[in-house]
């Protein structure tokens, strides 16, 4: 009787648990509009969806070790291209959104090519200035872009003004984007990117073409953030360059860092918390940014790995206390 090697149910079980969690979350989210009627609240949730896509796509680039401090600007590129195509060329949203996303990816890869030679800090600084350059260019050509007064008169995505329709659209878009980004990260490509992040020399020595993979990561990341930007354009119907300036990029980075840049769910949680919690404190009006700053400060001092590490931290704190009690009893 031959022994069959024991199967390893643990991996499969964990994957099924994760999948169940995602399905449950999506089901709960789809039922939300039944409970939340206020258009303002739905608007906030829609914006959260948009920023979740932007933040997770930021992470998609970050796993390759690059810190693109121009991500808000790429959202702006996608947004403005979609807006301008809609306004000046009269293209329908079903055309502008995917094309704007592709254009954003294309520009990202074009820029990524010379920037790929920069490492770590220099890459961050270079992209930082590229982001500033983008906003400066947007303001510099007001005839096309509306300059500092903004771009108006863009065709909406859906004829209805109901936020519920947009809610389901953004839910679907987010699930779609997250699914692709998840598969991207946990594929051979994603593993190669993480290898490059850990040690580009070792990665090159096993035959990973560092430049090519880094540009690919930038392309994928920029595609999705451009998608988010273009969807935002047709949702908001008005564009202002303030939405995509340096501070916007920094906030996207914050969402990712606070949530925890080490895990896939991190940016999602970070975005949700940093967008939704200050909304609860909206009654404080002028004082509400203190709440956001408070969250930043608490997380950066107490949870360096981000909010996703909270369960782990609580567990380790708890076991430390129990061990402490045991030692006290033993002596």
């Amino acid at each position: 009787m031959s022994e069959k090697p024991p199967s390893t149910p643990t991996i499969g079980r964990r994957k099924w648990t994760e999948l169940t969690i995602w399905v449950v979350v999506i089901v709960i989210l789809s039922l939300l509009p039944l409970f939340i009627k206020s258009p303002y609240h739905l608007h906030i949730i829609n914006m959260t969806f948009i920023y979740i896509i932007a933040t997770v796509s930021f992470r998609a680039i970050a796993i390759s070790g690059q810190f693109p401090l121009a991500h808000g600007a790429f959202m702006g590129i996608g947004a403005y291209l979609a807006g301008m195509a809609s306004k000046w060329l009269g293209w329908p949203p079903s055309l502008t959104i995917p094309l704007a996303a592709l254009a954003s990816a294309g520009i990202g890869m074009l820029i990524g090519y010379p920037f790929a030679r920069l490492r770590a800090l220099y890459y961050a600084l270079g992209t930082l200035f590229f982001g500033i350059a983008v906003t400066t260019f947007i303001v510099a050509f007001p005839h096309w872009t509306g300059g500092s007064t903004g771009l108006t008169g863009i065709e909406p995505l859906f004829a209805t003004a109901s936020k519920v329709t947009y809610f389901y659209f953004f839910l679907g878009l987010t699930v779609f984007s997250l699914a692709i980004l998840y598969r991207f990260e946990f594929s051979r490509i994603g593993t190669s990117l993480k290898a490059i992040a850990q040690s580009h020399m070792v990665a090159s020595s096993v035959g990973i073409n560092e430049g090519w993979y880094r540009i690919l990561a930038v392309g994928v990341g920029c595609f999705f953030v451009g998608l988010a930007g273009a969807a935002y354009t047709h949702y908001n119907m008005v564009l202002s360059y303030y939405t995509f300036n340096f501070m916007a990029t920094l906030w996207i980075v914050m969402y990712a860092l606070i949530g925890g840049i080490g895990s896939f769910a991190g940016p999602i949680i970070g975005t949700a918390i940093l967008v939704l919690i200050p909304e609860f404190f909206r009654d404080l009006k002028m004082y509400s940014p203190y709440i956001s700053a408070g969250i930043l400060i608490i997380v950066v001092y107490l949870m360096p790995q981000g909010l996703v590490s909270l369960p782990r931290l609580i567990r380790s704190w708890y076991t430390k206390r129990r061990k402490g009690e045991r030692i006290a009893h033993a002596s």
Partner: protein
Amino acid sequence: MLIASSMYILVALGLAFIFNMLGILNLAHGVIYMVAGYITYMLAVKLGISSWVALVMSTAIMALFGVFIEKFCFRPFVGNFNAAVTICIAITVVLQTTANILIGTSIVAIPAFMSGVFKAGPLSIFYDRIVTFVVGGILVGVIMWFVHSTKAGQQMQAIAQNREAAYLQGINVHWVSGLACALGCGLAAVSGSLMGALMNLGPFSGDYMMVKALILVILGGLGSFGGVVIAGLVFGSLGAFLPVVMEPLIAEAVTVGVVVVLLLFRPQGFFGYEVEV
């Protein structure tokens, strides 16, 4: 043109101090500039103190704030880029909100440091511009002398070049870093107050200044002080001459574009030390 240059250089030098000592890019520098300007405004207008005294007082306040920031906010995060960015944003948000609450979002102007117009033949320049330029120039000179000739300044250079070796040499890195932070914030404060008198001061002035200072620090070189001054002069001139040839907005875009291209070819700036990554 030279006036603006000297102010940008002041702020950029402040940023350079903090970055060279601690390796932390102080993203909150622009807010410090703005807050100092607002403090000077409040002291000068609400309390009726002379502008000069208000300037000195607000500089002292911001310098103390700089020491506070160094000890509590920067020192725990040296070397941790992510955390440093986070804490800088937190500081920015807190300061901006506080300013917003106390003063509101209106644009204010600090009363001039010296009023009147200076006439010399065909030239007539406002006194306050001259004063700003002179103060700025003197400060830049003093700072450069400080960095090169005093013991503390040389210690700062040592820390910038190799932090661990500086520890080994017996340099009290924490004390010197605190001093550098104080100096950095103080410089931003002086510039904020002077510019607040020259041009209006609004809640977004800090952002604009931050960008300019960042450009100067990065192009001048990470780790160098003299490079910042030279970069400041170069870009001040660029900023002054380009708008004559083309539209001002496009000139700005071109300037930033030039910066990006330069960064691609010489990421460590003109005079910087190569940072190990």
